[in-house]
């Protein structure tokens, strides 16, 4: 056959076999056509191989730049229109975290330990500007601070003000002002009690209120805690004065849970200052005995005559000149400013929204942490100051004081008016006196006798309406 082909091809044109002399179907093709045909064949094979490779590549092997064939082919035919805006980045779906790297240490800022700052908010618009000034002044590296806010059942513009402030900070030119992750959680729990000071602090409302607050705190934490957090800092929005270094100051103690002392400034007539947070305390035998007598769902709340617990309170142990590093073991804590290691919350300690050993919310939190053998510490001589919100009694007292003050002011005003009047009339006279004196001196020097009478008449005319003035003039004339 090969000879046949060779002979046939040598002819340069299609022909029948010369050997047989009989017509045969063409067994071969001309050189140029054969060459092109083999080229086409190679091309087709290459294409098939390529698509096969592409398919295998996308399915099983290859690197990260390869992709699911169906979606990429789709994107080609749609000219990228279907996946508009989606094609310029890749997704990471897998996260790996070793929790032993986020245990929290005494000098966390050196190890880039992240703190989750949790702030529960409800109708807090009025306090936000103060809060943000504190936040911006924190000395802990801002990029290591993740902020989480819970806005619940708010009727004022808490949300609007909050978002505006946060967006301004993240858009600030100074890079060191930018915070880390910022989450605003919105959840309404249905308010059972009013938020005004009196109903908020009334004894009867406490158990329900504390349980509700506890739920809110738990919702905030569970939505915001991430595997990369080493610390969690709870901060109330209405703290008026606190050191900018508070995070480092508390962290240096390297405790599982730590709280500062919380006082509040008072008007002078109330003594100038007062312990504020009575929820930080040590357990007492009296309280434990009391707890045993109470119903399963009862909640002991501190600072009310109804439950006399005789517990040592962090607040009352404050010495303004004491060493701020002095520590005190606690069983219950207040929620104004809590720094806790994130592992405390990971292990399951939370704010009980039920009666846990007769306590709820932050006090139950302290109790639960102790139950898990974690350290709970308070600093009696390291004080931050809560904003002063007058109670109803205070307000009444203040109104009384205001009335007294107003009455006093009124009296003073009257007095002042009188004095002014007196002074006015007297002042007029003195002015007149001076003028007259000058005038008269002139007159005296120029035309001593003859015009003295005329001048006296003119002065009389001027001061005529004013009796004392008139008298003075007369005196002058007499002189």
């Amino acid at each position, binding site marked *: 056959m090969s000879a046949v082909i060779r002979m046939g091809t040598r002819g340069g044109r299609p022909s029948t076999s010369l050997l047989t002399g009989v017509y045969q179907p063409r067994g071969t093709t001309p050189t140029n056509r054969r060459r092109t045909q083999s080229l086409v064949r190679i*091309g087709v094979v290459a294409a098939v191989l390529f698509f096969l490779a592409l398919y295998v590549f996308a399915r099983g092997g290859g690197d990260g730049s390869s992709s699911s064939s169906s979606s990429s082919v789709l994107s080609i035919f749609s000219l990228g229109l279907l996946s508009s805006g989606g094609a310029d980045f890749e997704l990471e779906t897998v996260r790996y975290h*070793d929790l032993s790297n986020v245990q929290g240490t005494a000098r966390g800022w050196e190890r880039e330990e992240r703190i989750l700052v949790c702030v529960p908010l409800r109708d807090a618009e009025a306090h936000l500007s103060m809060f943000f000034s504190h936040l911006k002044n924190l000395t802990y590296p801002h990029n290591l601070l993740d902020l989480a806010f819970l806005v619940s059942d708010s009727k004022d513009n808490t949300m609007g003000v909050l978002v505006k402030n946060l967006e301004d900070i993240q858009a600030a030119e100074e890079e060191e002002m*930018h915070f880390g992750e910022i989450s605003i959680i919105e959840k309404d729990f249905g308010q059972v009690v009013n938020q005004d000071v009196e109903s908020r602090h009334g004894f009867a409302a406490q158990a329900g209120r504390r349980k509700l607050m506890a739920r809110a705190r*738990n919702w905030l934490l569970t*939505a915001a805690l991430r595997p990369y957090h080493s610390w969690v800092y709870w901060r109330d929005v209405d703290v008026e004065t606190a050191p900018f270094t508070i995070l480092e100051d508390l962290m240096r103690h390297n405790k599982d849970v730590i709280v500062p002392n919380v006082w509040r400034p008072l008007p002078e007539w109330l003594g100038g200052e007062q312990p504020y947070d009575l929820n930080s305390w040590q357990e007492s035998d009296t309280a434990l005995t009391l707890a045993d007598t109470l119903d399963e769902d009862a909640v002991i709340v501190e600072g009310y005559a109804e439950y006399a617990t005789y517990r040592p309170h962090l607040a009352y142990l404050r010495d303004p000149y004491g060493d701020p590093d002095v520590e005190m073991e606690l069983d219950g804590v207040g929620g104004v400013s809590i720094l806790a290691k994130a592992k405390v919350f*990971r292990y399951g300690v939370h704010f009980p929204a039920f009666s846990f050993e007769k306590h709820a919310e932050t006090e139950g939190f302290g109790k639960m942490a102790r139950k898990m053998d974690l350290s709970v510490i308070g600093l009696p001589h390291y004080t931050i100051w809560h904003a002063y919100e007058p109670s109803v009694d205070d307000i009444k007292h203040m109104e009384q004081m205001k009335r007294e003050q107003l009455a006093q002011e009124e009296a003073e005003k009257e007095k002042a008016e009188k004095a002014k009047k007196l002074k006015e009339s007297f002042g007029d006279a003195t002015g007149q006196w001076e003028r007259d004196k000058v005038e008269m001196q002139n007159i005296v020097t120029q035309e001593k006798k003859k015009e003295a009478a005329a001048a006296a008449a003119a002065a009389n005319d001027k001061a005529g309406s004013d009796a004392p003035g008139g008298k003075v003039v007369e005196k002058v004339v007499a002189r």
Partner: protein
Amino acid sequence: MARPMGSVRLKKTSPATLAVGAALCIFILYFLIGSSTPDFSASRKATAASHPLSPPTSPFRKSTGNGKLKPPPVAHYDLNNVTTTPKPLENRENVLVLTPMARFYQGYWDNILELQYPHELITLGFILPKTKEGNDATRELQNRITKTQKYGPEKDRFKSIIILREDIDPPLVSQDEKERHKMQNQKARRAAMAKARNSLLFSTLGPATSWILWLDADVVETPPTIIQDLAQHDQAIMAPNCFQRFWNEEKKEMDERPYDFNNWQDSPTALDMAKKMDPDDILLEGYAEMATFRTLMAYMTNDGGRLHEEMPLDGVGGAALLVKADVHRDGAMFPPFAFYNLIETEGFAKMSKRLGWQPFGLPNYKVYHYNE
């Protein structure tokens, strides 16, 4: 055939040019595909977080490596809009599947892959101990995950996956079934287990989750519709019955037996025992030396019974458990200490009840535990 004209025509069309053109086309296609690399569909990308500092229940944009990262945005999550309904599929509710894992079982992974719930709504969370066994399991798990998330078809890929390593010193007990179930080892073991569960839960829950499916790594047989099946009851906590398959020597055939005894209804005996106990001691189920006379769901199964028959429970096990996220958000966790003389999953049931959530079980709906 038009042979006389053949060569002329061939010259005109020139197959060589055709081949070159085809090759060119291929190259153009290659660069089109190679440069765009859309690894996920647009709808998935739209729900992704723009920054790595974000809830782990969502994927995030990979940093491109050029230029500095922008500061994270102010993210807003309205939890009033996160629903938990009996129709999770229709309402496209996010499910978080949580698994504490000491060993890797292929059966478990196969079940996860076969879940007939949209995978783009499922986030998987794992926590593994930092022991040699844990390292091996992590490696195996990561291999499977890479296979699915990177090279698998998009519909198989999960929304996101979180792998955590424990920071808890493991109690000095081996994972052998015999050693593990010794009574005196139970409190320490279950306290460590509870801490692991809590760590996993509170690090991953995030703001978008509607349901949490607790599924132990040694549960190797689960119905693919387990999420919908358990959710349709609209209960706060729903536990299926956990059984184990074994070779029955007497019958000479494969048989099944009850495995998880932590799903129970309380008995007066047990409550009395608890009263007399020290508050730090725990009551355990399934031990002859501590007969509690509780009603165990494991024995309540009825082969001819209705699959979806419910029963209220006072204690639950963790082998498989579907929980509304709100229950955990309210604070219900797995106590690593004696809570009403109960610990871990049983303590969780009690704490949920204290918060006003009633657990339920399905005695006839079965999942199967691995047999060692």
